[in-house]
């Protein structure tokens, strides 16, 4: 089935629901304005993105043929997506043979229901969690809370976000919008409410803050009966799940509890164990800019006498099959959530992660969210426009997702849906422009009008705000003021004698 780009996402497969957290959210430019006004966040983000960017570049250059690795990574993910049903069945068989129980969830509600039931069956009233985008996407913490189960985030940044009643703003460093003194305040105010209090005299030194988090979480790790994780990769031919992390909180969660529940998006599948050799080179270097992250854990069902003996895996669709149906959009499912595209994006750097209105911020969020949720809400409609199309995201993406191309296709979709047959202001302007450009006499006349208007601007370098309807353009942009003389006017003034005729008239178009 070949689908033309303008038909992107016009398939019948179910979308993910936009949750109540995001459904009433205004469009991206409105949200971005809040981000732009937040100077602490902008400073932190600029520092963070530029630092990780430089680290990434250094370790990528160490690899003799990075491009070949990227091609391997993209081809491996494509292979998994091309035969996804077969690989999922193989994964399920191998997990089951290794003593795990596999569950399938069509959507967020179903996944939450399965997870909550599993937790309640153990009798536990709390769970420890390893940072996981999939569980954020389905809003599992909220579902657990509604069922009377406390969910403790254990990644330091996630802990900061959770204690601060906040939302993550970056895939890798979710609390990057907070500075150290804010973190200190949050720890002092909030830790005692949910467990071991922050020590008195806590300073805002990162080492001190990390020590406070260690002490706070340790009692939770040592008594936890149930852990909930996501996964970075799920290996079909061995039934192995893989989690990469830095702090050791993942190892704690994956090792000490009796029951382990992992929520796995169906696109996380890799066909074979050997594929990990490629991705364990691509992911750490692209993500934290390290040759290798401090800790990676892999587990294959149940290992007798070692770690959780009650192991569950929830395979989650939630809009992914809808994305899979699109020949172009499908490549967004290759994403390994490294966040390299966020760190190079000039729009993300200024607007911040919250403006993207989903758990997936930055360039990948701008292409993935409208595909998973469709483009019916203001925020989802505006996401494909949250880019300057500079192409930096594609350059760094370890699995070669052509984000700019996807953005353009999604813009086409949004515009087509919006006008429903009637031309928009933009379309009318483009049509008028093509009429003007289509004949050089019209162009000369138009240009004369423009240079005359330039004289009215009295030497100002840019045009600021214009009246409606042009305000739709000028509100977000400064346009350079037109020159006092066009090239054609300059040419005919200075070259009139060369050919004996006005060159402006005779120049080739």
């Amino acid at each position, binding site marked *: 089935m070949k689908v033309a780009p303008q038909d992107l996402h016009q398939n019948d497969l179910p979308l993910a629901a936009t949750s109540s957290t995001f459904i009433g959210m205004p469009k991206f430019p409105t949200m971005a304005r809040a981000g732009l006004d937040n100077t602490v966040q902008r400073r932190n983000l600029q520092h963070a993105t530029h630092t990780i960017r430089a680290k990434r570049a250094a370790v990528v250059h160490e690899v003799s043929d990075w491009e070949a690795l990227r091609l391997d990574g993209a081809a491996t993910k494509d292979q998994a997506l091309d035969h996804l049903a077969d690989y999922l069945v193989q994964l399920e068989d191998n997990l089951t043979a290794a003593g795990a129980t596999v569950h399938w969830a069509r959507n967020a509600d179903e996944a939450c229901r399965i997870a909550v039931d599993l937790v309640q069956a153990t009798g536990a009233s709390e769970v420890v969690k390893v940072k996981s985008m999939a569980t954020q996407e389905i809003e599992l913490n909220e579902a657990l809370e509604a069922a009377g189960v406390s969910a403790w985030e254990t990644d330091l940044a996630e802990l900061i976000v959770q204690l601060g009643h906040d939302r993550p703003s970056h895939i890798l460093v979710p609390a990057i919008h907070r500075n150290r003194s804010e973190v200190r305040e949050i720890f002092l105010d909030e830790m005692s409410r949910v467990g071991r209090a922050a020590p008195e005299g806590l300073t805002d030194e990162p080492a001190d803050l990390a020590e406070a988090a260690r002490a706070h979480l340790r009692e939770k790790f040592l008594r936890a009966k149930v852990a909930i994780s996501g996964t970075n990769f799920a290996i079909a031919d061995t039934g192995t799940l893989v989690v990469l992390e830095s702090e050791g909180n993942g190892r*704690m969660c994956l090792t000490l509890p009796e029951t382990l529940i992992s929520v796995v998006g169906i696109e996380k599948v890799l066909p074979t164990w050997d594929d990990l050799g490629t991705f364990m080179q691509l992911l750490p270097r692209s993500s934290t800019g390290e040759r290798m992250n401090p800790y990676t854990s892999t587990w294959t069902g149940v290992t007798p006498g070692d770690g959780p003996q009650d192991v569950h895996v929830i395979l989650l669709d939630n809009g992914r099959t809808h994305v899979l149906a699109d020949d172009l959009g499908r490549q967004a499912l290759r994403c390994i959530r490294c966040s390299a595209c966020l760190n190079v994006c000039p729009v993300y750097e200024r607007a911040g992660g919250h403006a993207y209105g989903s758990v997936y911020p930055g360039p990948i969020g701008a292409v993935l969210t409208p595909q998973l949720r469709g483009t019916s809400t203001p925020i989802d409609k505006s996401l494909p426009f949250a880019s300057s199309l500079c192409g930096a995201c594609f350059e760094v993406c370890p699995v070669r997702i052509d984000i700019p191309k996807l953005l353009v296709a999604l813009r086409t979709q949004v515009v087509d849906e919006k006008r429903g047959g009637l031309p928009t202001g933009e379309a009318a302007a483009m049509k008028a422009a093509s009429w003007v450009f289509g004949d050089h006499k019209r162009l000369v006349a138009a240009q004369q009008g423009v240079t005359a208007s330039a004289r009215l601007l009295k030497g100002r370098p840019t045009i600021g705000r214009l009246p409606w309807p042009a305000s739709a353009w000028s509100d977000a942009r400064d346009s350079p003021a037109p020159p006092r003389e066009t090239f054609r006017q300059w040419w005919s003034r200075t070259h009139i004698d060369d050919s004996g005729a006005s060159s402006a008239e005779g120049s080739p178009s």
Partner: protein
Amino acid sequence: MSSARDEILQRIRTAHTAAGAPEPIRRSAPATERDRAEVLDVFVRMTEDYRAVVERCTQEELPGHIARTVETAKAARIGIPPDLDERWTAEIAGTVVVDDGLSTAELDTIDAVVTGATVGIADTGTIVLDHSGNQGRRALSLVPDMHVCVVLESQVVADVPTAVRGLRPSVDAHRALTWISGPSATSDIELSRVEGVHGPRTLHVILVAGA
């Protein structure tokens, strides 16, 4: 089985499935054979680069090295897996505690743990434990604050893909793996690196020659 399963598989088949069987991925050419001494040097350099302490010694020197390491760290209670070579710990002055199924609370009273490893990866300075034999179960090398890890030179491979291929038998036996590259660390607060959060705050690697 469940209807969600059938429905998701059906959705996938409706959405997109390529014709034919999957083609094996043709990966970029394997690295050329590298000089052993250089591979070992790279392993030491890269492991140190991620702030682990690395020492090299011979098999005869190993017991003395282990004893001095835990003594310097003022570790009084030393945890070991049941299957650790007893010569390794022969010179330790402190209390040696064998993990015969210690509770989490008991593990929390241990100051340092001594284990072997399965594989060392030179290019990334990584050690991998498959938690069989002399490596002990996962909790043993996680809860105590110091991990002394003995790696044999013969266990060190040059790159990540070679290590992954070599680990396949462990995975087929349903063993869990832990990949360790330096001590635990976080950069979550203003991106400034702090070593030692939840895992062992000290990683001490001893690379044993001629073994």
